[in-house]
C-alpha cells in the first residue's frame, strides 16, 4: 500500500474556480498523509436540499490545493483550459494519433455492429423464414450510428488523414464536409466502410499536465502551511468566529485549540478587533491566533512567519 501511496498524484478538478476532489482514495490519502480534511460538499440526488450528510466531492481551499501542488503530490485538472491549449497547440503527431484513435473506435463500432447484426440474423433464422430480410433491430447504444451524412464525415476524416497539417478545427471548417461531385466517391467506398461515431468523451485528445494550471488567491498560505507542517488540521472557522479553526489533530479526535486569522505583515489591525477576537476565543475555550509572514526582501527569500496567541487575562 505504501509503495502505491508514494507516487500517488491526487487529481484536483478545478471547476468554476473551486478545487474539488472526486476520488475517495485521494480524500483518505490527503487526510491521512497531509493533514487536510477540507469540506465535503456533495449531496444526494434524491434529496438535494439536505445538508446533514454530505459526501463527495471534497472542496479544498486554494491554500490546500497550492500546498499539495508544492509537495508534488497533486495536479490541477482544468478541463476547459486543457482543451483550449491542446486545440491551439496541437502538432501533426498529436493530431494524427487522435484521428487514429477515433478510427480505432470506429473499427470497434463496426465489429460490435457486425456482431449484433449476425446475432439478430441467427435469431430470425431460428424462427420462421421471413418473407423479406429485415434490418437489424439491435443498435449498440454506446456508439450511436447515423445515416449517410455521418458516412460523409467519416469520409472527410479519411481524407484528412492524407491531408495537410492543419489543426483539427480549421480543417473541419475549411474543407467541405459534404462530398460534392468533385470529390472522388470511389475512394472511401473501395476502402473498408466504417460507421461514423460521435465520441462521448474527448479524453483521447487531452492529456492532463500540458497546461499545468497553478493555484491563485491563496493569501493565507504562509500561516496555513505553517500550521499544517506542525500537524495541525484546519477547517473553516465560521463556527468559532474566525477565518479558520485549528485542531491539534484530526477533528474527529480533538477539540479546536485556536481560531485563527491571517494578516499581512504590515496590515494595521484595529485594537478592538484583537479585544473582541480574544474575548470571543476565550468564550469558546479557544485561543485567538493571529499570524503573518514577513515579505521577501532582496537579501532573503521567504520571510519568517510570526504567530501570536491572544486570550483573556482574567483580570
Amino acid at each position: 500500500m505504501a509503495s502505491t501511496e508514494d507516487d500517488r498524484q491526487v487529481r484536483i478538478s478545478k471547476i468554476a474556480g473551486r478545487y474539488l476532489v472526486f476520488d475517495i482514495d485521494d480524500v483518505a490519502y490527503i487526510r491521512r498523509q497531509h493533514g487536510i480534511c477540507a469540506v465535503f460538499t456533495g449531496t444526494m440526488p434524491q434529496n438535494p436540499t439536505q445538508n446533514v450528510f454530505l459526501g463527495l466531492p471534497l472542496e479544498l481551499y486554494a491554500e490546500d490545493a497550492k500546498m499539495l501542488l508544492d509537495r508534488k503530490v497533486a495536479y490541477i485538472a482544468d478541463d476547459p483550459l486543457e482543451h483550449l491549449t491542446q486545440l491551439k497547440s496541437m502538432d501533426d503527431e498529436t493530431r494524427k494519433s487522435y484521428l487514429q484513435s477515433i478510427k480505432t473506435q470506429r473499427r470497434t463500432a463496426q465489429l460490435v455492429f457486425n456482431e449484433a447484426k449476425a446475432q439478430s440474423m441467427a435469431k430470425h433464422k431460428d424462427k420462421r423464414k421471413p418473407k423479406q430480410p429485415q434490418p437489424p433491430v439491435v443498435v449498440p447504444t454506446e456508439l450511436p450510428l447515423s445515416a449517410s451524412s455521418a458516412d460523409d464525415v467519416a469520409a472527410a476524416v479519411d481524407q484528412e488523414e492524407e491531408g495537410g497539417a492543419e489543426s483539427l478545427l480549421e480543417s473541419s471548417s475549411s474543407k467541405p464536409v459534404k462530398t460534392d461531385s468533385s470529390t472522388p466517391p470511389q475512394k472511401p467506398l473501395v476502402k473498408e466502410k466504417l460507421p461514423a461515431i460521435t465520441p462521448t468523451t474527448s479524453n483521447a485528445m487531452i492529456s492532463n499536465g500540458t497546461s499545468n494550471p497553478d493555484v491563485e488567491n491563496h493569501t493565507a498560505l504562509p500561516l496555513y502551511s505553517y500550521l499544517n507542517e506542525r500537524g495541525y488540521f484546519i477547517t473553516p472557522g465560521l463556527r468559532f468566529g474566525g477565518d479558520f479553526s485549528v485542531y491539534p489533530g484530526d477533528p474527529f479526535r480533538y477539540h479546536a485549540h485556536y481560531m485563527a486569522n491571517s494578516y499581512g505583515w504590515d496590515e494595521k489591525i484595529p485594537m478592538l478587533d484583537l479585544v473582541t477576537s480574544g474575548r470571543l476565543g476565550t468564550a469558546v475555550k479557544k485561543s485567538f491566533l493571529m499570524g503573518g509572514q514577513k515579505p521577501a526582501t532582496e537579501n532573503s527569500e521567504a520571510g519568517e512567519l510570526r504567530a501570536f496567541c491572544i486570550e483573556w487575562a482574567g483580570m
Partner: protein
Amino acid sequence: MNKTGHSCSAHIDKTTTISFSQSVSQSPQTPDCLTIANMSADQHLQALTKVVVNNLENQHDWTQVQIHIQDNLPRPLIYGLPPKRLYVHPDEQIDIIKAEKQLNQRVPQEPELEWVLPLHLAEKWSISDFAAVFDAITATPPGGESVNANEDAQWQLWRGPKRGKRILLATVQDDSTVTYYWMHNGLVKPRQN
C-alpha cells in the same frame, strides 16, 4: 480606593486628548510643528502609561510596578508583580498536579513578574509591530530571573527556561476602562477554563 483610582485616571486621559487635539490644530501654523507633534505624542504615551500604572496599582493591587524604557522598544513597557499568579500554562498545570501527587502536599503558586504593554483602543498595530516588541524583550522582566533554577521538579522549569514570552495587552478606552489580554509569542495552546 478603587473609586479614586478611576477618577484620577479619567482625568489624566482627558488632558491627553486635549493636548493631542491642540497639536493637530496648531501644527499647520507653527514652523516647529514636528517637534510639537513629537512632544505631544510623547505626552500621550506618558499619560497612557500612567493610566495603566494607576489602574494596575489601584484597581488590581499590583506591586513593584515599574516603567521600562529601552531603545529598541517603540514605547515604554510596564512590568510588575500581580497579587496572585496570573498565568499557568496548561502543561505546567499538569506538571504541578503530578508534583502535588508525588509530594502529597500542595505546591504554592507564587506570583511572577509580568510584562504589560499599554495601548489605546484607537490604535492600530500590525504583526510586525508586535514582533518588534517581542524581539526586544526577555521572557522574564528584569529582577525576576533568579527564581530557583535547575531542580529536578519539572514544574519549576516553567518559571525559568521553559517560560515563553508573553505580554499583557492593556487596552485603554477614553472612559478609563482598561482591559487585559494575554498575548503569547508563537503557538500557545489555550488554558482549560
